């Protein structure tokens, strides 16, 4: 006897690499205001990103992880979220974070080596950047559970990388979320590389979206360089979650055009020729082609946007560079709600040596 169950993972793309729109694209996915918003946010992200790298190269910033070529993912996700929703980002998701309200200054302060960079003025409830790969999925699951338990119509969103889908944390948290039917969306930025490890050395699966099958949740694969499809998929998943429909896993296909981080040199392990080929599919130029062709975007607007972004970035850099370090006390002040009496001695020791050049702060 042989009976069985079947599963299907769909793939979505609306806008081709050449900027041509698939006729099946839903009307609400191509609202001009929506697309212009996505476009501006992507450009802003890229402007910021490039400057951050330049700062690192000149010794003014610590290690930084560029999102070059992957801007559509974060921007689409953030644009589909409401402010009261919760984002648990990885270190490569400033695209999403900037759109949600994190400032460029905050992000620079963080990568400059200062915890205040995770004290976002807006949104107060988003998680900070997550470095231990995959762990943020459980945080989002827990947050989603809190929303559901309190009857709040809020959604938690976690973003992680292709490499992150190999972790036990990714799976066990998604499985838990599936079990509990909580309002969670997990987005995989499949940029094809985990540092030097290519996607095929991370998993033998045909897609990463199919990992949803193991958690009993919906999985879909999207062209993550197609801002229109990406935004549409994110919106469907987020609204489904908000409506009580449970978690979704979205695999966003993209390509890491830059190094893993500024500490990496990707030419060591991958062919620049392939990178050049992949660059032709990047999301910003693609959407611009479409907007230009539809008469929704002009050269003049482009110039103005570039200008605005550059100015905003410069202001942020200036503010960042002008940020004095915290004193030694900050290490102690935020450890607990109240510093235990037993740590008074250590606090005093730190104070004593802070003034004697014990630190470099």
């Amino acid at each position: 006897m042989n009976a069985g169950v079947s599963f299907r993972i769909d793939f979505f793309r609306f806008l081709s690499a050449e900027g041509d729109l698939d006729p099946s694209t839903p009307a609400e996915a191509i609202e001009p205001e929506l697309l212009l918003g996505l476009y501006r946010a992507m450009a802003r992200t890229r402007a910021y990103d490039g400057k951050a790298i330049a700062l690192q190269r000149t010794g003014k910033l610590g290690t930084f992880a560029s999102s070059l070529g992957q801007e559509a993912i974060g921007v689409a996700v953030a644009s589909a979220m409401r402010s009261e929703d919760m984002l648990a980002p990885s270190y490569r998701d400033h695209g999403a974070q900037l759109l949600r309200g994190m400032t460029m200054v905050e992000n620079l302060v963080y990568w400059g080596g200062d915890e205040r960079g995770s004290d976002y003025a807006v949104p107060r409830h988003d998680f900070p950047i997550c470095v231990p790969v995959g762990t943020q999925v459980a945080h989002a699951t827990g947050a989603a559970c809190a929303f559901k338990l309190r009857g709040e119509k809020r959604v938690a969103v976690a973003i992680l990388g292709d490499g992150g889908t190999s972790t036990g944390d990714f799976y066990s948290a998604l499985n838990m979320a599936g079990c509990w039917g909580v309002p969670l969306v997990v987005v995989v930025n499949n940029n094809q590389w985990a540092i030097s490890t290519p996607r095929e050395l991370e998993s033998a699966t045909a897609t990463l979206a199919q990992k949803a099958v193991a958690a009993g949740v919906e999985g879909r694969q999207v062209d993550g360089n197609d801002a229109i499809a990406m935004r549409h998929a994110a919106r469907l998943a987020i609204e489904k979650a908000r409506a009580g429909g449970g978690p979704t896993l979205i695999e966003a296909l993209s390509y890491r055009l830059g190094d893993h981080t500024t500490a990496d040199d990707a030419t060591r392990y991958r062919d620049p020729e392939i990178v050049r080929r992949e660059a032709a599919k990047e999301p910003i130029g693609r959407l611009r082609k479409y907007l230009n062709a539809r008469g929704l975007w002009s050269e003049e607007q482009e110039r103005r946007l570039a200008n605005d972004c550059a100015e905003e970035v410069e202001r942020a850099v200036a503010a960042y560079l002008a940020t004095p370090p915290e004193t030694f006390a900050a290490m102690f002040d935020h450890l607990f709600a109240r510093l235990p009496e037993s740590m008074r001695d250590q606090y005093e020791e730190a104070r004593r040596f802070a003034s004697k050049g014990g630190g470099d702060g």
Partner: protein
Amino acid sequence: MAELTLVEAVNRALAHELEHDPAVLLLGEDIGVNGGVFRATLGLQQRFGAARVVDTPLAEAAIAGAAIGMAAMGLKPVMEIQFSGFIYPAMDQLINHASRLRNRTRGRLTCPMVLRAPNGGGIHAPEHHSESPEAMLAHTPGLRVVIPSSPARAYGLLLAAIRDPDPVVFLEPTRLYRLFKQDVVDDGEALPLDTCFVSREGRDVTLVAWGGMLHEALAAADSLAQEGVDCEVIDVATLKPLDSETILRSVEKTGRCVIVQEAARTAGFGAEIAAIVAERGLYSLLAPLERVCGYDVVMPLARLEGQYLPSVARIAGAVRHTMEAA
């Protein structure tokens, strides 16, 4: 007032907080209908509902990670790990996230969660069910580590742990769960989370212990009293933050100190206490410090367990040795 075992006292404390604070919820494996493998959550799902007493899938890392997410969003999750030997899969979430969320975000997000787990050996349990990982947790900045030694302390300290605005690891000595009963007033009165308790006053030597070992230390003190050795016995209770003043004051009085620890000797929490005494109480010492510890071997299965665990005989031996010195 009721005569309660330690595990019943834990149950009362959980019920009290579930009743008085709508943000509190429990999560863990088999804590619902089954009431937990030790029945610490007995009847609580029935009373407070499955939304507040949540049976989880078998995944300690996900439980801890989800608890962090809940805590950051304003809940006060109290998670049960079935035995402290199964905390290890959750270590990453505890160390890299729970303990530092407040600091990382400069106070923007906080993590008021409690991790409860039965701890230690002495009940002839199966493999991996008798671990004592408290030192690893106490080494982690940002965590509080509490180990009660009696029903009343379990009740009061667990209330404090749940109410604490930061993460607390609460390790319950399995061997004490049903060893004895004690009058516990279920009045919601918490005990301080930064205090060592003097369990027995004495002049000659200070015995420092926590959890299950406190009772071995007290039994040793009883037997030594018959030899004319008057032991002061300190229940550490909260390992971190440590109330070293109480310990140092005692050592100043007695001049001798024996530390008892069930966990393996090397880099256990007893070493920290010894180090503090050597730093700040050296001039009080009339004899070398002694530690009576589990050996640096894998916690044995039941038949050799008794060879491993610090016993009254070993503690008394160390005390006699320290009395003979100098």
